[in-house]
Structures are given as C-alpha cells and as structure tokens.
C-alpha cells in the first residue's frame, strides 16, 4: 500500500517527485516501490490479455509482460546514462534507472486503467486481429505517456547540469526511438502475449517475420484487404 503512495506522488506531484530523484531523496525506496507496482500491474494486464486464449496463456503473459518492460529497461538504461554523461549530465546510473522506471510505472498504471476496456472487448469480440490491434493501440498510448513523463523528468533532473541542454534533449529523443524499437523487438521475441485462437498454447513462438509487418498484416485483415494466416 505504501508502494502505491509513490504512484500517487508520481501522478499528482511529478515535479516534486523528480526533484527528489534529482536530490537523491529516498531513491532506493522509490525504486523498490515502482518496481513492485509496475510488476504487479503489468502482470495483471498480461493476464487479461492472455485470458482471450487460455488459462495457460494468461499465466504466461502475466509472467512475460513484466519481463518485457524490465528487460527493455535493462538493455536501454546504460545507453541513456552514458550518452547523458557525454552531454554533461551529472546524474548517476541509479537516478537514470529511477527516471526510466518512473516512465515504466506510468505506462503500467495506464495499462491497468485500460484493463477493464480490454476485458470488455475480450468478452464481446472474438476477432483475434482486432484484439491484437486494440492492444497495440493501448500499449502505444501508455508508452507515449510514459515517455512524456520521462522527458519531463529528464528536464527537471538535469536542470543546472553542465553541457548542452539541447544535446541532452536530442539524446533523449533518439533514445526514445531506440527504446521503442528494442521494446517492440523484445515483444516479438518473447511473443505470444495474446495467443492466436487456432494455435495451441505455446510459451514462445518460433522466430520469423517481425513486429511491424505483422501489425500491417493485421491491419490489412481488419480493414478487409487480405487475410492473415
């Protein structure tokens, strides 16, 4: 319950929260709270997504969705840190991780808020491609909101640092693309999260294709251009 207090602080008083990160106030407690909350929220949303296929898929997605975001964080955090240092930032790695974790936590909270909608469509539609695209849209919205929080946090935390502010902003923008790219590829690698209705449950699917071509194919089927196998 105390961990949820951190979320309240992020959502209601983000400036104060980022200032505390900048000053290193209670950093480890914040990290722990954000980590636990986001894992719980991602797991629940993953379970909602996977419920469209089977109980096993629900459990599998509940385990894989937190892994997806945390692994992406693990992969991308050093890049952001070292590039920030290059451009004169005086943050340490823990502060960088705290900022990215803030973005991830915001994403998790927004996903949780979308969970009733996902559950509603899960119960009222059986169109796999539509459900997949719906989730892609929800993840996009949640991801963009998280990234906006990250941008704001970076601005606050790196205020007063040496070096070029513009350079750091550019680094962050590029890093966001990298983060989205790594995240989507990670999601493709450890798929399925929903599970195609015609295919038996499988923990991981064979590699092949990529995230973007699959989304275009799903769009094509939903819009009636062609049929995806």
């Amino acid at each position: 319950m105390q961990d949820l207090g951190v979320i309240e602080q992020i959502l209601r008083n983000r400036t104060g929260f980022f200032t505390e990160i900048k000053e290193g106030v209670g950093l480890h407690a914040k990290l722990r709270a954000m980590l636990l909350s986001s894992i719980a929220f991602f797991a629940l949303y993953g379970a909602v997504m996977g419920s469209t296929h089977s109980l096993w898929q629900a459990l599998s997605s509940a385990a894989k969705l937190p892994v997806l975001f945390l692994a992406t964080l693990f992969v991308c955090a050093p890049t952001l840190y070292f590039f920030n240092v290059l451009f004169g930032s005086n943050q340490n790695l823990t502060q960088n991780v705290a900022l990215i974790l803030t973005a991830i936590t915001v994403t998790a909270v927004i996903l949780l808020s979308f969970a009733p909608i996902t559950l509603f469509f899960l119960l009222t539609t059986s169109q796999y491609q539509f459900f997949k695209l719906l989730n892609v849209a929800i993840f996009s919205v949640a991801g963009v909101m998280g990234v906006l929080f990250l941008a704001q946090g970076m601005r606050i935390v790196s205020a007063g640092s040496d070096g070029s502010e513009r350079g750091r902003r550019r680094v962050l923008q590029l890093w966001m693309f990298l983060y989205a790219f790594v995240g989507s590829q990670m999601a493709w690698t450890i798929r399925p999260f929903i599970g195609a209705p015609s295919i038996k449950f499988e923990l991981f699917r064979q590699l092949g294709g990529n995230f973007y071509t699959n989304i275009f194919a799903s769009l094509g089927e939903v819009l009636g251009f062609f049929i995806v196998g």
Partner: protein
Amino acid sequence: MSNQARTTTDQILDLLLEALLERQQARQQPTQAETPPAPPARAIVDEPQILEVEPARATPLEVETAETTAVEEPPLEETLAKTAEPAPVEETLPEEALEETAEPQPDAALSSASPAQPAGAGLGPMLARLFVVLVVLVIIVNIPFNRYGTNLARALPDSAALVIRDGLLLKGSGEEVYVLQDNRLRWITTLDAFTYYGYRWASVHVVEDAFLERFERGLPIHLLLKCRASPHVYALEDGQKRWIKDIPTFETQGYLWEDIKFISCEELRSLPDGLPIPEDAGPPPQP
C-alpha cells in the same frame, strides 16, 4: 530535553486530572451557581500559550491550576497536540533523519493536501481496489463452467462481434463454408477450392444459421481445372467436373483466368462429368 518533555507531559496530565476532579466536584455540589457556566473562549486560546512556556518556568504551576479549573477539556487537548508537535524534536534530529521523515511528504503542496483534502488522498487505495477487482474478474473469466472447459472469455459465439468485410469466412450448422464477397455469401464448393484459394480453417467463423440468412447468396466458388492439351475449362463441384461452355459464361460466373489450376489430362478425364455450365449447354466434351 526528554526529561523536560516528560515533566511537561506529567504536568499536563496532572492539570487534566485536577480539572476533571474539580468539575466532578462542581457537578456534585447542589448550588450550580458557583461553577462557571462556560469558560470564555479567550481562556481556551490563551491556555496553551502558558503551557508552551511552561518548560522554562517551574513555579507558576499553582497559578495555572487555578486558571485551568475554569477551563474544560478542549484546551488540554490542544495543549497535548501542541506538545506533540515535532517542532522541538526536529531540532535535535540529524539532517539524514530529517530527510527520511520528510520523504513521504513530497512537497508542501502534496503534504498539505493529503491530510486535509480528501481529493488528494485515495488514489493509492483506489488503484489497489481496481487491482483486486481486475484480479477477481480475470479469475472469473478463466473459470471453466462446463465439462468441455469452456470459460467466459471464450464462450460467446463468433458472430457476436465479427467485423463484416470481404473475405470473411463463415460456416453455419451445415458443412458448407462461405466467403463473403460484395456483401454476398459465396459457397466454397470443395475442399480443394478452399485450400487452392488460400483460405485457412482458422479463419472460419462458426455462426448461427440465422446470421447467414442475412446475406444474399452469390455465385459458388469452384476450383477451375484445365489440362494443357485441351482448351476446355471445367469447374469442380462435389467431386464432378462441370464443363464451362464458353468464355462469356466463364466471365459471367465471375471466374478469373489466373485462378485456373492445371492438372494432367488423365487426372481430369478420370473425374466424372457433372452438369455443364450453363445446364443447357449440351453434352460436355472430354479434355
């Protein structure tokens, strides 16, 4: 400092006790006139100020006691609250401890809002409640409710929320599979045609017959067969080859030349003849 604080607390408790005793005595007395009817508000407000200075002085306790006899419980509560204020304690704490104590209160705006304004509070509990409700719902939709293991998440019939579009594959209670084209259902006549045109069983939606009745029927989809040594084209239906009389008929049926499947003439000849297209076209020629 702690001894002084304890002394102050003791004094306050003594005062409280005395005030209570005085009050009890006053109530027991038959003449109510001697007891003051209600303490003036000024006395209530002033009282804690005297006690705040109290730790510095030792002697004026007697005087205070005299005053507090006229004062009821509220000032004492206020006094207790005042003495419990962290202001003097904070001075003794190290800076790290101050930071730790300040941590749950992010800034002045939030800290002032959280205890006093209910709007500022409750997001955490609300999230927790939403979480619990969702967990319960996820469990509910995953509980099988019949012996086939069907659960709520997969219980609704497919027609409940189909996206009506060209290429939609539908099947009713019968064996026939239809594809929706130009808002008409076209029967896919053979399994060979089904696979030849690249349809997949995974894409077939089983719906109620009443749902199929909503659509007009279009021309059936045949597998078109031809061998290279013969100019004739045949449509395969129910395991029989149906000769297509001429090109206008071929085009009227909506067939496409690129859909023709080439097989050997022997294989084509081995198929029994069905009715030609159109049916009055006469006896079908052999390939």
